[in-house]
């Protein structure tokens, strides 16, 4: 018996529907409908495997600790948070796949605290444009994401370029006039390092800058230290990942180079102190958050939350960054009256001002500015611990 054409068409339509659902098609307007009850479903892609897992795992644990703490204390306006994390292995293709699962299958209303600049960019067309789901509190980011403001994309971390300008300002204010910038050679690092000279010149005309590029992944910094010595500077600026900054500090200590040394936020890390040991003493860095050793109620809550919900993780910068991002989301989500949807979250971010967490800078967003802060915290290694120097300071305007 031959199948009737209508049956065949119905079967085809059913298959198409299944395929479209599997591909993560989501209604325009973003995420699932919300009836005001049940958990608030949000998601993230984070590198939990591969080389970038060193930052991804503690970032996830920090955010998880905060969300768990909030859930145990009543949730957001009485609603629990269901934060679903997918491993993207810092790979664009896996990130797109994770985005499709989170938006299409899990029906999350926002992507919160995702990680991976290039991988996330691969997912932007599907998440931001096609699905209209906001991406907020991204871990890291680049200037082009926020200038001009992009609909549904909101950031909470001071840009690398502003961090570089802030460390230049700090060095010059401390009396340095000849800066030697040791930076990794890929463009992403070179562009950040390139902000140091102009910022220093604006702070104090006549300040000179000498660049010492090194290969990404360098472990032997003896040649670079020799070049720093030859340059005759009076301060060194590091635009390197934390393990390389530690290797530089050790090599510099070995060669007797004791110049004041400043780093950008990725070097404000437990890794720098652990690997450099005594050579890290006196090292300055700008940080995106307060020092995790501060004796404030908010920081004590952070340490308690990590001890309780992520006992295998250190209560340091690596976990605090994820924790702070989660805290910003909760503070803003609390202001939503009525259903928590993709649109209401984006609207809440667009009007959020003076968002206080006690661990990160106060954040303010607007329709024109989707980056909540340009502030950094100055921190210095003293007795093997990162210590805050004063309060948050704003990065100088870049030219």
């Amino acid at each position, binding site marked *: 018996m031959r199948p009737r054409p209508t049956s065949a068409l119905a079967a085809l339509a059913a298959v198409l529907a299944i395929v479209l659902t599997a591909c993560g098609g989501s209604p325009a307007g973003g995420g699932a409908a919300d009836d005001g009850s049940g958990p608030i479903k949000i998601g993230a892609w984070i590198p939990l*495997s591969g*080389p970038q*897992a*060193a930052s*991804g*795992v*503690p970032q996830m644990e920090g955010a998880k600790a905060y969300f768990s703490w909030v859930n145990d204390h009543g949730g957001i306006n009485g609603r629990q948070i269901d934060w679903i994390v997918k491993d993207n292995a810092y790979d664009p293709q896996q990130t797109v796949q994770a985005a499709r699962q989170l938006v299409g299958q899990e029906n999350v209303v926002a992507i919160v605290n995702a990680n991976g600049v290039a991988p996330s960019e691969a997912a932007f067309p599907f998440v931001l444009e096609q699905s209209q789901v906001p991406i907020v509190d991204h871990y890291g980011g680049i200037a082009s994401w926020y200038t001009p403001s992009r609909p549904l994309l909101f950031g909470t971390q001071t840009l690398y370029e502003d961090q570089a300008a802030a460390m230049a300002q700090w060095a010059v204010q401390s009396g340095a006039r000849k800066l030697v910038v040791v930076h990794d*050679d890929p463009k992403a690092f070179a562009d950040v390092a390139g902000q140091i000279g102009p910022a220093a010149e604006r702070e104090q005309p006549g300040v000179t800058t000498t660049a*010492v*590029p*090194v*290969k990404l*992944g*360098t*472990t*032997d910094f*003896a*040649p*670079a230290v*020799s*070049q720093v*010595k*030859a340059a005759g500077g009076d301060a060194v600026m590091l635009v390197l990942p*934390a*393990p390389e900054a*530690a*290797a530089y500090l*050790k090599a510099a200590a*070995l*060669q*007797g180079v004791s110049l004041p040394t400043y780093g950008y936020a990725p070097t404000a890390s*437990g*890794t720098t102190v*652990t*690997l450099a*040991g005594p050579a890290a003493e006196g090292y300055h860095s700008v940080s995106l958050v307060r020092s995790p050793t501060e004796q404030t109620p908010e920081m004590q809550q952070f340490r308690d939350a990590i001890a309780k919900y992520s006992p*295998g993780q*250190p209560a340091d910068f*690596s976990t605090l960054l994820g924790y702070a991002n989660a805290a910003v989301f909760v503070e803003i989500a609390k202001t939503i009256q009525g259903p928590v949807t993709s649109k209401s979250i984006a609207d809440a971010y667009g009007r959020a001002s003076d968002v206080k967490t006690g661990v990160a800078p106060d954040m303010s967003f607007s329709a024109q500015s989707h980056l909540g802060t340009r502030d950094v915290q100055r921190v210095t290694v003293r007795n093997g611990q990162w210590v805050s120097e004063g309060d948050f300071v704003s990065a100088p305007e870049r030219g």
Partner: protein
Amino acid sequence: MSELFLVVVSGIASGAVYGLLGLGLVIIYRATDVVNFALASMATLAVYVALMVVQRGLGVGSAVIAAVLVAVVLGLVVRELVIRPLGTGRLFAALVMTMGVSLIAEAVISDVWGTEPHALPPLVGGTVMLGSATLATQDLMVIGVSAVAMLAVGYLFTRTTLGSAMRAAAESATTAQIVGVPAQRVARIAWALGLGLAALAAVLYVPRVGLAPTVLAAPLFRAFAGIFLGGLTSMHGAVIGGVAIGVLENLAASYVSANFRDTFVFALTILILLLRPQGLFGTRSFERV
């Protein structure tokens, strides 16, 4: 002048590590026809065990011994359970198998010890002044230990019965077996020796950069460059090739361009291989058809 001296000595210290890793690769390859891509990951796993030994206050010396022993045992286990069942002549299957073992080892490390870098203390602390250059005693120790290990391996292969058996097995396992050389035993010894040397390289290298799951990925890459430069079949070629790579990359970074450090080193390697495909110290092999 002191800068050049520092750059060269520092390069030799890095190169000695590449040379030890390369030696481990060549020993295993010559005895069993297996290019062991898991060498670095397995050695890294052994260093994590060494870290546990240090954390228990048993001293760095004990940690080095522990690392070598663990690596040897790991090598034997992988050889017997993963490589041996493949049989002989399965070069590409074995290569893929070692890649798989490498990924598994990295996953185990990340799961058990996490992905945050750890500090491993050096075998010896302090510095030595040579002229106006200051050198870490550990770097000189790396060069010394590597040199001793290489000489010992050279002696083993050229002056002992076991070495002769290993060389015979390398030429033809079947023929060697016919004339009474226990090929399987030789293969086991080669894997144990190769992994032991790799673990030694790892414990000497890690104090400089910190211990992370993929810490030996870059040195393994350079060790491969070294053994191709020196000659895949030559043990002293592997060592000299590794040291040459270490020195060249430092010279290139200091006097050519940091951006083109690897480009310069590998362009030179390609040039040498074009002129001498068997490498600087390798021998050309001919197969009767």
